[in-house]
């Protein structure tokens, strides 16, 4: 899922429109009134009689009709938010014409409120846990339950077609309710979710007869021993996309083959690692129309030896003339790499991040990938492999280099050499995620100058607080150059040895930065202060193990209502500091978490997670979470 623009939900955007009313929002039933100071020709039909606008005897139906028709063309949520603030009539029209609802933080607004305002929604996106939950920094059962959402939507949106969830806790029962409630349900996309099993999948695929898209990405699915593939309807399906590469359970291959055979619209298929290359072959010959393919294991099935079946894999790939996106290779058997040569020159996206291959093994593939725009790979290809990428992939927009060995003291096969080569060769680069063991400021500075289109720069020097390994300097200048030279930068993740100076650069030049990720960095409160005072567009700030304390926390008071969340774990905060924030900003939910459960109350906590919300403290907190609520 791409990182979407800043405004998480239009009701929250009203917080930044803080005019002289206080509190920022009047919490009354029904739609939230827009600014009173604007007059418009439209009587409120919803019975909210608090406005002082000029009223006319009859609603201006013509204007409203025109408005609704025009607003249908507005797709950007930010634009829609702006439109909704013009006046009450526009607010209502916008609410009626919004068909896609985006909830950036599932706790910022309640399902009841959202469904009350937007009544004709067909597609919903909900994001739950903060990103650091992916790295075990948050105990399980923290929250982000889908249940209240699905039960509200079941009543409010019977015509719901599409649901996209990221980092939500989804149970089998939720999926069952979903399957029951939405007769025309078409698309289910689950990214980084957990809490359900193959039983839940079975119910969805069997009941949602209109299903077009079932995409599971980096989502955990429990093995309930249910053959969910068999549960698809027997007739022709509408399936366009079926992605289950993250599902770790065995599947019924015969059933899958039949399913593919009766899914003429199938364009995207990502198999899990239990599908062997022989099985892949059988699927490919049935579906040469595929545009996106996840190859599964790309290896023989267990017990088979090479030569047992000599299938013409090359032809199978050659037949897929529309293939542009290739991934999988979960247990790659190197001998079969040449099978993909026929499609390389068409590929715009290649994901080899599960394939532990060397530079020499990569070169014959990558040298053909002239059109490649997105490339995910393991650092096993070394700097040399990256040079090969830089030589050929002139259209590259996104690069992710993952470590084979994710430890701090491992051998570092990629370094500043690879980064610099990429910056020289791939001038159109927009997004990079680079894990390495050593780096220099010079290389990062070079990238900042060569790749002026960078929007996302995430550099992870895996050894904590490592300086420039050539000069011994902190990495301040490198990251400083990035924020200075990359004028479009919106997302930044820093690492290595960083002093407050680095943060002063970020605050001074990172005016468009929306997401910032900090770990083991900075010297003092000043660091955080620079960022909070300087980065006016900051939406998401996640910090761990950095020496920022209460003073720094307070320096962001003016901005927290504009943010989606702030996460600080293992920093130098005290409870008093957090209470101060909670008192000053009543619309902020301030959660403190301890890593150990059941410990006595103390002054100590491990993690602060705070976010604006229209609803106040949530009612589903687990034992280890405490919400600081002033006056209660």
């Amino acid at each position, binding site marked *: 899922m791409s990182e979407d623009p800043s405004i998480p939900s239009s009701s929250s955007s009203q917080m930044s429109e803080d005019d002289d009313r206080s509190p920022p929002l009047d919490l009354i039933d029904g739609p939230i009134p827009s600014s009173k100071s604007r007059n418009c020709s439209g009587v409120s039909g919803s019975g909210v009689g608090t406005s002082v606008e000029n009223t006319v005897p009859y609603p201006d139906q013509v204007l409203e009709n025109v408005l609704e028709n025009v607003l249908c063309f507005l797709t950007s949520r930010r634009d829609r938010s702006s439109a909704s603030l013009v006046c009450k009539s526009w607010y209502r029209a916008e609410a009626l014409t919004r068909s896609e609802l985006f909830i950036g933080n599932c706790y910022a607004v309640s399902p009841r409120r959202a469904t009350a305002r937007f009544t004709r929604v067909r597609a919903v996106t909900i994001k739950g846990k903060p990103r*650091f939950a*992916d*790295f*075990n*920094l948050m105990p*399980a059962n923290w929250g982000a339950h889908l249940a209240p959402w699905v039960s509200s939507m079941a009543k409010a949106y019977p015509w719901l077609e599409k649901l996209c969830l990221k980092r939500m806790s989804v149970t089998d029962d939720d999926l069952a309710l979903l399957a*029951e409630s939405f007769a025309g349900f078409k698309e289910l996309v689950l990214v980084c979710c957990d809490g359900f*099993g193959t*039983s*839940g999948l079975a*119910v969805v695929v069997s009941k949602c007869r209109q299903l077009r898209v079932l995409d599971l990405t980096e989502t*955990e699915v*429990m*093995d*309930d*021993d*249910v053959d969910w593939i068999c549960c698809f309807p027997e007739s022709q399906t509408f399936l366009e996309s079926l992605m289950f590469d993250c599902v*770790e*359970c065995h599947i019924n291959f015969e059933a899958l083959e039949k399913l593919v055979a009766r899914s003429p619209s199938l364009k995207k298929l990502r198999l899990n690692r239990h599908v062997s290359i022989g099985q892949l072959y059988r699927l490919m010959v049935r579906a040469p129309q595929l545009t996106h393919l996840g190859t599964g294991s790309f290896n023989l099935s267990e017990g088979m030896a090479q030569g047992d079946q000599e299938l013409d894999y090359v032809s199978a790939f050659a037949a897929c003339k529309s293939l542009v996106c290739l991934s999988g290779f979960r247990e790659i058997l190197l001998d079969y790499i040449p099978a993909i040569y026929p499609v390389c020159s068409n590929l715009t996206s290649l994901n080899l991040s599960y394939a*532990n291959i060397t530079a020499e093994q990569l070169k014959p593939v990558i040298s053909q990938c002239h059109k490649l725009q997105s490339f995910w790979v393991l650092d096993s290809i070394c700097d040399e492999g990256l040079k090969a990428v830089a030589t050929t992939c002139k259209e590259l927009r996104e690069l992710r280099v*993952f*470590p*084979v*060995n*994710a*430890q*701090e003291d491992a051998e570092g096969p990629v370094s500043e050499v690879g980064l610099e080569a990429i910056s020289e060769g791939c001038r159109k680069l927009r997004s990079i995620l680079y*894990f390495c063991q050593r780096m220099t400021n010079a290389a990062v500075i070079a990238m900042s100058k060569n790749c002026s289109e960078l929007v996302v720069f995430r550099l*992870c020097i*895996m*050894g*904590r*607080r*490592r*300086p420039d390994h050539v*000069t*011994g*300097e*902190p990495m301040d200048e490198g990251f400083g150059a990035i924020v200075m030279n990359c004028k479009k930068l919106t997302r930044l993740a820093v690492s290595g040895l960083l002093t407050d100076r680095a943060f002063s650069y970020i605050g001074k030049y990172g005016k468009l930065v929306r997401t910032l990720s900090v*770990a*083991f960095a900075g*010297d003092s409160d000043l660091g955080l202060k620079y960022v909070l005072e300087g980065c006016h567009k900051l939406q998401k700030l996640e910090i761990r*193990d*950095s*020496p920022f304390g209460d003073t720094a926390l307070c320096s962001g008071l003016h901005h927290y209502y504009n943010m989606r969340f702030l996460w600080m774990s*293992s920093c*130098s*905060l*005290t*409870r*008093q500091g957090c209470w101060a924030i909670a008192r000053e900003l009543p619309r902020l939910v301030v959660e403190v978490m*301890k*890593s*150990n*459960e059941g*410990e006595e109350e103390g*002054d*100590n*906590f*491990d993690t602060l997670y705070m976010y604006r919300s229209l609803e106040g403290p949530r009612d589903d907190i687990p034992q280890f979470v405490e919400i600081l609520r002033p006056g209660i």
Partner: protein
Amino acid sequence: MATEMEGCTRKEKEACPQLLDLIPRERDWLVSRDIERSSSRGSSSSEEKKLELRLGPPGQDWSMKRERDGKSQSLLSLGYYSSPMSSNQTQKFISYQQQAKVASFLHLPVTPNKASQPWCTKALDLQNAENKGFSPAPANTAVLPNTSQKRTAPAPVVGWPPIRSFRKNLASNKSSSKSAVESENVVQIKDPNGKPVETSGKGLFVKINMDGVPIGRKVDLGAYDSYQKLSSAVDELFRGLLAAQRESCNGGTKNKQEEEKEITGLLDGSGEYTLVYEDNEGDRMLVGDVPWHMFVSTVKRVRVLKSSELSALHLRSSKDKMPL
């Protein structure tokens, strides 16, 4: 370490840790465990004591309570515990990176509390610099900036480097489906003690599926002490689901009598359904035949079968292996 040392000397003077100067005169040392217990990592040298340093706000040493299961950890809280109210006072503190350097000189291997959860123990913490001073470990542990030792990695920290768990096993390139199924517990159990969040004490979760209901459940057998209680639990768990299932099969017509009918007779064959289980040898057995504790120790999963279909199965036979 050597690199970091060089880096240190090149920085401005005040940033360099002068560790000897940091050793205070009067400081409280809070040590909760016997320091002499040797590290389970097998090193006998005194430098490889396991130390846990804590980064956190001033206050009680809550981390002392964390180690419960007897693994040898010596716990050292560096620094001085001031009262929480003192945060207003001006504090002199040493810059964080100096602390970091010291910490990295201390060998801090982490001992996972459970082998399957290597990332759950937070081993590296540094004392809050807002405390009055900063005291390194006592002299008999390795706190020497001029390290003559081979550079060793600081103890791994939870969630660092920030790689999702499914990407972590690539070097070995194996992740069998079995471990992946159990990995649901690994990833979700984030408690640093390694205590599974789902269970209390020893949890004995087994899957339980009911005929006609696609969604199975898990029950914690440790929560019951008799077949009767298990039977009631099954009734509670599935009553609603079964009614919903029947309702949908009837095309949505609600039969009020049918709704939420109690599921009885699970143990004696008198009801519509009967409880059956699969034991650790793969055999299917009727629930209720053996003493409860024996059942609990051998059961692997449970099924709620239609009683009418029982006669077709050969139960209580240790020879038959029936797939569930």
